[in-house]
């Protein structure tokens, strides 16, 4: 029997040019309403002229292994389906915003139709054997979805010789976005 999947995303900040194609592709794919987004891009600038560094980061839900949104959801709408992702059952969601308050990454918003919404790693596409819309569109191939349980060496190949950053690991959330700097 094969092991369950454990999806994670590796994001190469050296490839990323912060163009935001991922944001638009996600919005089109997931019909994200105007004024909201499930993923976003930040440019972090450090230093002062002319000694500067710049990091381009495409960000989204971290699909935490130990997810505060799941722990704090009173209705069980936020859940782990067992493939490493965190998903939302819209029928169970009451829009109470407990998950928004619990999420340390500010990855969620309340959809105008009344439920919490966020990046799903395009679960509907994964089921069809497709990559998430952001991964597919990215002109710089900065985004890679990996299965940490696959034992295919993909994660190791991508991260070899690179500094790997994760966000707010000290919170114990075990986040699954890995940024290569």
């Amino acid at each position: 029997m094969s092991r369950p999947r454990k999806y994670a995303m590796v994001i190469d900040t050296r490839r990323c040019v912060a163009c935001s194609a991922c944001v638009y592709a996600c919005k089109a794919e997931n019909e994200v309403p105007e004024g909201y987004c499930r993923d976003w891009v930040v440019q972090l600038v450090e230093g002062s002229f002319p000694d500067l560094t710049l990091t381009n980061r495409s960000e989204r839900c971290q699909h935490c292994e130990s997810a505060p949104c799941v722990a704090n959801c009173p209705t069980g709408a936020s859940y782990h389906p067992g493939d490493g992702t965190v998903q939302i059952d819209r029928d169970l969601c009451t829009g109470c915003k407990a998950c928004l308050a619990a999420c340390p990454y500010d990855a969620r918003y309340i959809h105008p139709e009344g439920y919490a919404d966020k990046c799903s790693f395009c679960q509907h596409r994964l089921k069809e054997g497709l990559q998430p819309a952001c991964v597919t569109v990215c002109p710089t191939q900065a985004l890679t979805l990996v299965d940490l349980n696959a034992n295919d060496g993909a994660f190791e190949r991508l991260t070899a010789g690179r500094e790997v950053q994760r966000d707010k690991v000290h919170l114990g959330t075990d986040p699954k976005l890995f940024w290569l700097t």
Partner: protein
Amino acid sequence: MKRRQFLKISSALFASAAAPGLSWENSPVLAAPEERVVPSICELCFWRCGIQAQVKEGRVAQITGHPKHPLSNGKLCPRGVGGTGLLYDPDRLRQPLIREEVDGKQQFRPATWDEALDLIAERLGYLTAFYGTESVAMFNHGFGASFFKTLFKAYGIHTFSAPSYAQCRGPRQEAFKLTYGHGLGSPEALDVAHSKCLVLLGTHLGENMHNTAVQDFTEAVARGCHLIVVDPRFSTAAGKAREWLPIKPGTDLALLLSWIRTLIEEELYDRDFVEVNTVGLEEVRAAVAHATPEWAAAQTGIRAERILATARDLGRYRNEALVHPGRRVVWYGDDTQRERAIAILNALLGNYRHPGGLLRFSGFSVPSVKFPEEKNAFASFSSRFPLASAPPANELVEQTVSGDPYPIKAWFVYGTNLIHALGDQARTLQAIEALDLLVAIDVLPMEITGYADVVLPECTYLERYDDLDTRSYRTPYVALRQPVVKPMYDSLPGHEIARRLAGKLGMPDLFPDDMEAYLDGRLQQVGLSLQQLQVEGVVSQPEPEDLYRQPAEPLRFRTPSGKIELASAQLAQAGFDAVPRYTPPPAAPPGYFRLLHGRAPMHTFGRTANNRMLGELMPENELWVNAVTGKDVGLKSGEYVYLVNQDGVRSRTPIKVRLTERIRPEAVYMAHGFGHTDPRLKFAAGKGASDADLITHLSLDPIMGGTGMNNNFVTFTRSAES
């Protein structure tokens, strides 16, 4: 009152009408089920990526990159994804408009296509009878202009001007032709992906978001390319560089000459290649003798050691190094010579048709269909700039104003908003005043359409066929633009507008009645069919085996000497420097900052500013001001200011200040394409500011007429009063 009052049309005037019957109404693609995926070509910019448009319930729901198209490789930039924002823009032009005067007041009257085209044909008939066909000029930008060019050539009109020449790539084109005998084309024939040492001068790939250009760039970065970025601004590309040289604006040529000097003096250049394939080395050596690193340091503000070290980096990588020639290169008026210096540097590196260097692309050969004989023009346009190979748009503006050497009385403007594209707006408006006929063909009510006598609404790229795309590329290809959905409103495809106008001009047989039969006929010549392209979107050939040259391959260049001309006899003959010579740029008046502009990844010039989808992430541009200088003059991030330039001209709209460490103190920067003022652009109007408002001074390139735009200076005011 001005004869040609700027007209703003209330959309209440428009009633939507069904598209008229067209020959391709039976298109198998359009007859396909309500849910379908249609391959085509993007037109949000001019790179022409392959796309796949997903149609759901009769509407284009989503656009993705075509996996097999060599210019997209399945990927798209934000603009390409946002194509639906253009298709479903509620502010689109919906029907032909005719300017008329009622009770002394000018207004636009919605008209039928027959009325509009009859009027154009009649006025064109008078004008050409009286002034000759040379009194008509066409300004065009975009793939769809080809049918109008065919039509006008057949009618004897030969003056076609694209702002992509004198306002953009022209100096590069001429410099490389002078040096190598051929230009670089678009997409540029460069092997960026395999470059081991890449120099970008002002070119901000990643913000300038041509899909495969950025794909190649990030591939090079990912492979560990030694990236050197020369830019007064810490661009996204500079953020990835091994070396960022924050150069004083306008001094790039001094740096380039010093690099040339070091390569020659330290014998770091490719001696074998240069000896066999070039002429003029000694002339160059003598001309750059003064350009020591210390001299260049004094000009550029970059330390001499860094200038020397980066020259040695270039020499170390030699054949595998590439000095990128850039794309929009009209900066200071010395642009052809700066591009010449870049051409010389690349020649010294010997990277011609070498992995990581300059390449030569070929096209997929699909013979054109012969159109009837062209009538001879009475006189065709001859530029006063000796080496201009196309009419500079600004020169046509000047001639329209002066009437010298002959009058220009009519403009056809296809897909280019001259008000924002040319700089020196006052002069453009003066020229428009002198016209007897201005026809604007556009999708949106861009500012230029407000000055037109007749406005012809073209449908978007998602609603039409255009001619086949067979441009040169690394892997030659033929690609099809085809309608994904039927034209909305009373808009028409360009080919249909041209065909109907041809009929009105007495050439009913110029174009085939059936666009599909025409395209199929072209494709059948090379064993392909329209049906195949409708399904596949693109057919590519493999990379030619001789893309890279063999070590001792004899090369012949289409220059007078047959070799790469390091020193240019052609330039000398025309009275210019055979080897580029540096002149410092004019300094800013006290209290003023040099105004620089560039690109943002989610917008194409002003063409996308009204796109509500793309505008969600970037509804307006910001003015980048150095954080320290900005504080010194009392600016705060987030506040809105008006800009006033050296000639006292104010920006029509205010712009949001962004204090940042990412720019030199003496310059300010904004993305081009904002500050629209036409209220018919309901989303874009009043958002951000237009650099074009402030570019009142054009530094003309004496060689080819390019319009250097970066010698304009601005200061700030919070007052809305002028």
